[in-house]
């Protein structure tokens, strides 16, 4: 699974060369998985037929399967996997806690509350190509992030990670309580649907929801791009980072906002798919070390490959019945993570 170019040996040529090697190696892995995944599924399709322009689209079942059923799933998996993995890296650096995930500070609980309200009470708004459930979960996620941000930041002061963590965890519990309350008011079928939503689902059915999520995702990635050097120093400690010239308050805000935006976009697109945001960063650190200039791009690419791969398992292993992708990531990620914990301690 480990690409040849990404060995843990430190090449002498410096960070640029390693970055190039990592992007090439992990990029090749991600590209290979993303190219392979749409070819495999519960049914066999003919690629030649799928790309045959002479057959009208409505008559071309192979093209339908390829372009409606598989490609959107694979792309969603790539976007969500990359986003959750990098958001996890940033969250772990910001909180200086290896157990932090993109969902630690309540963003996913806010998203879940929004989604569950719409599933239970039926109302909700359609915004452009986004149907009511994604709209509500995006709103819930952004609301949760805004609340935590307002609670934990003071103008001009650095964020206390303890306060941030407590505010986030408390908000998480509070939203979870609201979710339980709404579920309690809902009837059985709605409760079942909300539980299913919580397991995550990449079968978005068209490219439109993916395109709609891209502005947020790209904004978050642009913010990630300026973070690595400061995150390296921040993960050692806020004090030593500021003595080395890092604007700690600004870096913390940027880290929090970028990872929250990324998580909001990912969760509203595919539900709160667990373990990607914690397992992928740790796996990547095992392979490339702790330098965020390498960990961030490698996590994005490896996260994409990991989630697309998990979804491939999810949709083929029990076909025609599907396993929720969140179950697959947890089943593969959980034992691995425990092994990692035991090994490290």
């Amino acid at each position: 699974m480990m690409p040849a170019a990404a060995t843990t040996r430190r090449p002498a040529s410096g960070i640029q060369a390693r970055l190039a090697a990592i992007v090439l190696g992990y990029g090749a892995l991600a590209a290979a998985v993303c190219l392979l995944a749409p070819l495999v599924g519960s049914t066999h399709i003919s690629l030649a037929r799928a790309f045959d322009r002479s057959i009208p689209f409505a008559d071309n079942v192979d093209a339908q399967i390829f372009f409606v059923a598989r490609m959107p799933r694979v792309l969603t998996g790539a976007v969500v996997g990359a986003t959750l993995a990098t958001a996890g890296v940033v969250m772990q650096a910001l909180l200086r806690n290896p157990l932090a995930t993109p969902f630690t500070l309540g963003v996913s609980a806010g998203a879940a509350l929004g989604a569950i309200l719409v599933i239970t009470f039926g109302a909700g708004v359609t915004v452009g190509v986004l149907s009511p459930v994604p709209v509500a979960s995006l709103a819930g996620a952004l609301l949760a992030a805004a609340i935590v941000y307002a609670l934990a930041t003071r103008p001009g002061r650095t964020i206390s990670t303890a306060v941030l963590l407590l505010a986030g965890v408390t908000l998480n519990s509070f939203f979870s309580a609201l979710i339980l309350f709404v579920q309690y008011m809902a009837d059985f079928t709605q409760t079942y649907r909300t539980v299913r939503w919580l397991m995550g689902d990449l079968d978005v059915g068209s490219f439109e929801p993916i395109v709609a999520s891209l502005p947020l995702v790209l904004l978050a990635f642009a913010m990630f791009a300026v973070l690595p050097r400061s995150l390296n120093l921040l993960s050692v400690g806020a004090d030593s980072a500021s003595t080395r010239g890092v604007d700690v308050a600004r870096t913390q805000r940027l880290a929090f906002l970028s990872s929250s935006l990324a998580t909001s976009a990912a969760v509203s697109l595919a539900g709160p798919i667990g373990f990607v945001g914690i397992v992928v960063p740790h796996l990547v650190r095992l392979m490339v070390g702790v330098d965020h200039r390498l960990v961030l791009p490698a996590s994005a690419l490896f996260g994409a490959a990991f989630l697309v791969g998990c979804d491939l398992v999810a949709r083929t292993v029990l076909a025609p019945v599907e396993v929720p992708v969140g179950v697959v990531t947890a089943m593969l990620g959980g034992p691995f993570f425990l092994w990692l914990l035991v090994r490290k301690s």
Partner: protein
Amino acid sequence: MAARQKELIAAVCVAAMLSGASLVRLAQANPTGFAPQIQNNPARRIVSLVPNVTEILFAIGAGPQVAGVSSYDDFPPETKALPRVGALLDPDTERIFALRPDLVIVYGSQTELEGQFARAGIRVYAYRHAGIGNVLQTIRDVARLAGRTADGDRAVRDLQAQLDTVRARVRGRPRPRTMLVIGRDTGALRGVYVSGGVGFLHELLDIAGGDDLFADIKRESVQPSNETMIVRAPDVIVELWPGSQPSAETLQRERAVWNLLASVPAVRNNRVHLLYGDYLLAAGPRLGRAADTLARALHPDAFPVADLKGPSR
């Protein structure tokens, strides 16, 4: 020792023996507690935690005997005035006891609750959710418990006759491969749940003259991926939604969601039907009406135009 004292001691001994014996007898009659024995008289005060059984009780004329219903009951409208006692996950035992029922209808999975009422000497009927045969048996069972055996038999015959009528109406006609959708996110082709090869909805589809697209998966509900739906290519898609028919605009939008699966025959031939009504999803006396609605969607030409409304019940 005085004679009076001897008499008193004897009397106390006799009383103690008698009460001891009766306690033993009681304990033998009901080893789990000292509750009165359960009578076999018709139930006069019934509490139902199961909405479709409540519906059955009203349909067989036992409505006046119903003393309490679940928090989800809304049919028939008379149930709205009755005390609510929780449901599957949150039965309010105290409230149920306070209603002094002599029959409590619970879900088959509520075994603890069942034991609680049995210990209190209250009769319990455990409803198990299954196919149409089970619905008919439930009608017979609760009719017997409510002392309305004849009404129950009549309701069973009526329902069977309605189902037979529908079956006869569509007999010999080509049976479209039908995907019966029982849940979907609004405004998107996501979170789609369909009927699998067991349960009353599957049987209803069979009676209404359709072949279940997912009959091979022996579960009540299945969540197919878009790929599976494209590959299985249903001739007809029928969506069952609870509640009343929405605006024409909403209806149009929800139907257009399926246009994504352009190669599916149901979509190409404009045979996607959105049906609205609580009766479509309730395993009770209105199944006949549900079968009729379903058959009209699947086989419109089997029903003369003059007969557009269908049975009123």
